[in-house]
């Protein structure tokens, strides 16, 4: 029964997403493409940050690499079309992530977070000063394509593939390995999991997703500059989207990206100057009351509906009870 409802819901959402471009203006569609790209980045971050539990704060580096590679391959001597270019960018990102991941993933906790943050900053400075390739702070221009439905369907296609990949990996040996590393790395190693390979795989996979999103947004914006494509806000958005939706779940990143964008738009139009304050308050609320996001809330409400849990403040306070200082 529950399975049938879920399937119907899934088909309905997918149909709605497929038909959306017929009902909204071409300009509005850009916003939806942005949401899908955020969902894509969040799906990627979910592998390393959600399943494996490594707080990566530099994923914007791969977003930028994807954007630059796509742009450079579509321009100049090669004149590749979009798809080969964006996939080449994804491959390059995965390669770079492997190179960086091998040393950096040896660090734990805060040290890993700050090291990845530093790596992203370094890429921004490289992109800004490597004039012969990236044209420095001016950035590069891409060929113009004004067909907004193309970007929308491309992003939607990638997100759907992302859901499948996440769904399959979650139930595979590698998915269980990631969760084992998150819960206790030493124990995972004792069980014979090659933690280095598993962690690097998660990091490279997250790089591929961020890179694809970077390629789409670069082509849509037709201009790539270091300060627009290597800014830390993108990293924060992916993390916040995952936290709101639910880290380490298949649907969390998508749900989180949609809710984040809705909230963000609402806040922008109602409290323009206090936008960051409200955003900060939302982060604090989720971290304190729902650290595993809306998916956890739905799970608990589902238990209430089936009569296995009582309605009450406990739905919100369970996490505080589990993690506060006694």
């Amino acid at each position: 029964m529950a399975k049938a409802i879920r399937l119907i819901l899934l088909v309905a959402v997918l149909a709605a997403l497929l038909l959306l471009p017929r009902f909204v203006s071409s300009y509005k569609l850009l916003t939806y493409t942005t949401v899908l790209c955020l969902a894509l980045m969040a799906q990627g971050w979910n592998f390393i940050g959600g399943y494996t539990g490594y707080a990566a704060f530099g994923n914007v580096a791969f977003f930028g690499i994807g954007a630059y590679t796509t742009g450079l391959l579509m321009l100049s001597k090669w004149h590749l079309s979009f798809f080969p270019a964006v996939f080449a960018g994804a491959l390059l990102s995965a390669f770079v992530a492997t190179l960086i991941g091998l040393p950096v993933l040896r660090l734990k906790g805060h040290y890993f977070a700050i090291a990845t943050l530093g790596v992203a900053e370094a890429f921004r400075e490289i992109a800004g000063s490597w004039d012969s390739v990236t044209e420095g702070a001016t950035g590069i221009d891409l060929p113009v394509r004004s067909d907004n439905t193309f970007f929308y369907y491309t992003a939607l296609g990638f997100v759907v593939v992302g859901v499948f990949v996440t769904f399959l990996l979650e139930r595979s040996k590698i998915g269980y390995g990631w969760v084992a590393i998150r819960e206790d790395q030493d124990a995972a190693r004792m069980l014979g999991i090659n933690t280095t390979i598993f962690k690097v795989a998660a990091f490279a996979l997250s790089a591929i997703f961020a890179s694809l999103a970077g390629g789409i947004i670069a082509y849509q914006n037709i201009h790539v500059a270091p300060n627009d494509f290597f800014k830390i806000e993108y990293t924060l958005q992916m993390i916040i989207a995952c936290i709101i939706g639910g880290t380490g779940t298949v649907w969390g990143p998508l749900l989180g990206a949609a809710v984040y964008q809705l909230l963000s738009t609402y806040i922008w139009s109602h409290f323009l100057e206090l936008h960051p304050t409200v955003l900060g308050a939302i982060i604090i609320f989720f971290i304190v009351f729902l650290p595993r996001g809306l998916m956890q809330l739905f799970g608990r409400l589902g238990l209430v509906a089936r009569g296995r849990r009582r309605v009450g403040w406990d739905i919100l306070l369970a996490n505080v009870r589990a993690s506060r200082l006694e």
Partner: protein
Amino acid sequence: MTGAELGQIAVNALLLSGILALVALGFSLVWGIMNIVNLSHGAFIVLGAYLTFWMHALWKIDPFVSIPVSMIVLFGLGYLIQRSLINQVIRAPLLATFLLTFGLEILIVNLINYFFKADTRSVQTAYSGTGFALGPVRVPYIRLGALLVSVLLVLVLGAFLNRSRLGRAIRATGMDIDAARLSGVKVAAIYALTYAIGASLAGAAGSLLSMVVPFDPNLGGPYTERAFVICVLGGLGNVVNVLIGAAVYSVVEVFVGSRLPALSQAVTFGILVLLLIVRPQGIAGKSFS
């Protein structure tokens, strides 16, 4: 490079290291005792700077006199934040406190921006810009005063942690929270006290910075980063580690700043990442995982 230039670099590094040591001191305490990387440290620095600015602008209070006021206000704020918010998630995975303090940072900085506007401010006193010459090297009075205040606060904190009962309770809690609790330490209050001390030191640093550099609501972020780098360089552990880290860092910053100003961030972070990989326990500290 001439001798005079080298001398000036050395003096600048020394004067800078005082304030940076103060900035890093509270950060290091909070990190070392509670394992919290406090990303809202920068917001507390900005609050301290604005408190000093307004006290000087409205009531003509000398900026050095307003340092204790900043410290008391931020002590109270820090106590409240730790007691009411951070203590609720302290046993959750690391990312929780990291993001919680990050949320606090953007909330506080945006509120400051909303109420005081983004204009660049600075505290100008009669003695601003004056100084004395030490041979070919110039020493501004305010920076020297800031160095002296920083050294004083570092010494006071060191004495407090080592000699007083409360200080020992803080250190004991940092070493083994369960053993401390069994010995009768009220750990929730000690955590709040530790965070409050960290915030009040940030407030003092902010008051000093308001005299030394022009500032706006975004002053704090880069100082949080510097505090992190200093803690990694020096290692966590005690007050001496912070001093070593601050000294090394300010030499690097002043030197790189005078040679390669465009790449100072990249060079600093590059050194940091290399150090983390090669020597994860810092130059002089206990090992951390």
